[in-house]
């Protein structure tokens, strides 16, 4: 029988249910699913396992990968070629070009994108917001004002989990908010040293320091979903987090607009920082190639895209899918996405590997997280940031 072996880190109950849809679809086509889940550290353990398998000359069929990692792996010549399938199914037309840059290597399709997440969201507890006046902030100063009100309410103003990727997610939103899309491109996507150490960046870091004062004392090392839970329970007022945190709200039986409010991070309206899960197909030889194609096709199947993304909180990777089945936040997300895609303000998220290769990404996160934790002053961070980028190149 045909078989696909899938390496991923979607191990929670909801994710597993979503993946099961894919698994069952494939089984209907006679392809059995060999699961290879490796949770932990946002896929870092999975990457280790992947290296071992590739080095051994025995890669899994499909691997959940993000951003620049796709390129790095493709560069090693281990990718399968999906061009034929993509041409047949017309992927070029339905998948946003900004994403295609990563799904293709050297002009050839190597991966099937599953979804598109966006990271510059702010999630607010409706009750807390109402108590604070009910007006959603539209720029960062309004945000500070709102957070002050939350503080006065006696709740944690901003729920944040202190691990590098979360610090990075917050930081990139602040960069976008403070500097706008062009500055984001310059500073983050191009890692321009001047932009990374200039006055705008100084304001970014100052704002980060200010935001830090709105955290609770236990934030360090906390997982993102625990922070979300604080907001859900009303112990905290707001959380800056990617759209996956919506899944937590929905699972807690909360309704958008009624129990919680999803807005773009103040000051980043009109831009979307994205992050997409993709299944990269590895070259596993003739034997499984057929099954591999079936899987890629199944991933791009609109029904699966809808089913999966509803659970995950993200939006489909295809832009041709109607938003009828989705909730309000997702509808907004899909609208924002297509607008940003056409305006050219759909930009990769740094924290999730869509803005810089891993080495540079991690180097930048080092500085960001050290600064946020008070190990570096703002001036030192401004000096360190370009240095770190240069050293990691």
């Amino acid at each position: 029988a045909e078989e696909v072996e899938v390496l991923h880190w979607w191990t929670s109950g909801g994710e597993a249910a979503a993946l099961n849809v894919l698994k069952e679809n494939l089984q209907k086509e006679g392809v059995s699913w060999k699961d290879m889940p490796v949770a932990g550290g946002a896929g870092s353990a999975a990457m280790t396992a992947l290296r071992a398998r590739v080095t051994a000359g025995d890669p899994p069929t499909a691997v959940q990968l993000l951003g620049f990692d796709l390129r790095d792996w493709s560069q090693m010549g281990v990718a399968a070629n999906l061009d034929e399938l993509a041409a047949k199914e017309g992927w070029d037309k339905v998948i946003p070009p900004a994403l295609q840059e990563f799904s293709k290597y050297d002009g050839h399709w190597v991966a099937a994108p599953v979804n598109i997440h966006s990271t510059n969201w702010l999630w607010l507890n409706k009750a807390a917001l109402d108590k604070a006046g009910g007006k959603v902030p539209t720029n960062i100063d309004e945000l500070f004002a709102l957070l002050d009100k939350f503080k006065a309410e006696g709740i944690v103003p901003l729920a944040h989990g202190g691990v590098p990727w979360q610090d990075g997610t917050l930081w990139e939103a602040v960069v976008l908010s403070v500097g706008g899309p062009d500055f984001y491109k310059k500073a983050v996507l191009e890692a321009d040293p001047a932009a990374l150490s200039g006055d705008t960046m100084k304001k970014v870091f100052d704002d980060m320091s200010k935001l830090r004062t709105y955290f609770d004392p236990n934030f360090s090392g906390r997982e993102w979903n625990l922070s979300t839970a604080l907001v859900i329970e009303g112990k905290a007022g707001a959380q800056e987090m990617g759209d996956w945190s919506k899944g937590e709200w929905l699972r807690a039986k909360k309704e958008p607009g009624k129990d919680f409010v999803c807005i773009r991070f103040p000051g980043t309206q009109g831009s979307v920082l994205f992050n997409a899960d993709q299944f990269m197909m590895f070259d596993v030889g003739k034997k499984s190639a057929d099954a591999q194609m079936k899987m890629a096709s199944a991933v791009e199947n609109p029904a699966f895209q809808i089913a999966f993304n509803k659970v995950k909180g993200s939006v489909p990777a295809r832009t041709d899918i109607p938003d009828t089945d989705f909730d309000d936040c997702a509808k907004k997300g899909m609208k924002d996405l297509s607008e940003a895609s056409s305006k050219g303000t759909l930009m990769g998220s740094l924290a999730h590997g869509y803005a810089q290769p891993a080495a540079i990404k991690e180097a930048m996160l080092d500085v960001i997280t050290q600064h946020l934790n008070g190990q570096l002053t703002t001036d030192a961070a401004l000096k360190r940031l370009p240095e770190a980028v240069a050293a990691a190149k």
Partner: protein
Amino acid sequence: MSAAPETISAGSARFTRFFIYGALIILAIVYLLPLYVMLSTSLKSLDEIRGGDMLALPTDPSIAAWMKAWGEACIGVSCVGIKGYFWNSIKMVVPAVVISTLLGALNGYVLTKWRFPGHKLVFGMMLFACFIPFQAVLIPMARLLGLMGLSNSTTGLVMVHVVYGLGFTTLFFRNYYEAFPDELVKAAMIDGAGFFKIFWRILLPSSGPIIVVTVIYQFTNIWNDFLFGVSFSSGEASPMTVALNNLVSSSTGVKEYNVDMAAAVFAALPTLFVYVVAGRYFVRGLMAGAVKG
């Protein structure tokens, strides 16, 4: 021996005993706290965990979380609990422990009773192997396993554990056999026993204490290994620790702490059992030679 003389003057002695027992009991409580937290959490409901005190006793103990961890929790796309992985670990641990212990015993035997020029260098080099950080060997190991066709197989995993356990097992047995009288080997030689006969009939039957130490040491290390497990096995063939990690480290959805803790306790049961049952022999075995390092 014991340093304490049998009581001679009663007054201050009673105070001393009081102090000793007091200190031991306090220390024991401190050492037990994490285990207590795990156990009591696994018996609580999620609401109680969120709302209550970590150190409080469960108000309404329930083994639902245990049942779930064993048979229903999701490890990836299939939600059948961790029970299957338990067997994976056993299938990996038992051969790895047996082989590495046996090889260690043979090596120790050769290095003490059949010495050859350079035996110290050989031993030193084997000992040094204990200190290599495992992260550094993952990639070349993967390549070699691939070349041998053992990638992603239990056999391969067993081999890896045997290889990196050899240093310790050899060390333990060498130190033990070092103190084993040469005369016995000589006598057996004169009696007409050959190399293997001497080992099987004379040395091995007298190696009880050190076998206990070696087996305990190897068993816990291999059982608890995560790095090799996650790198050299996959999916449903993974050992327990990998499954446990998938369970507790998944980063979306409600964190079911009680299930996580129950699974963690399950994962720890065999090693706990080994230490509790064999603890006495462990100290005795250490006395018998392993302590000399």
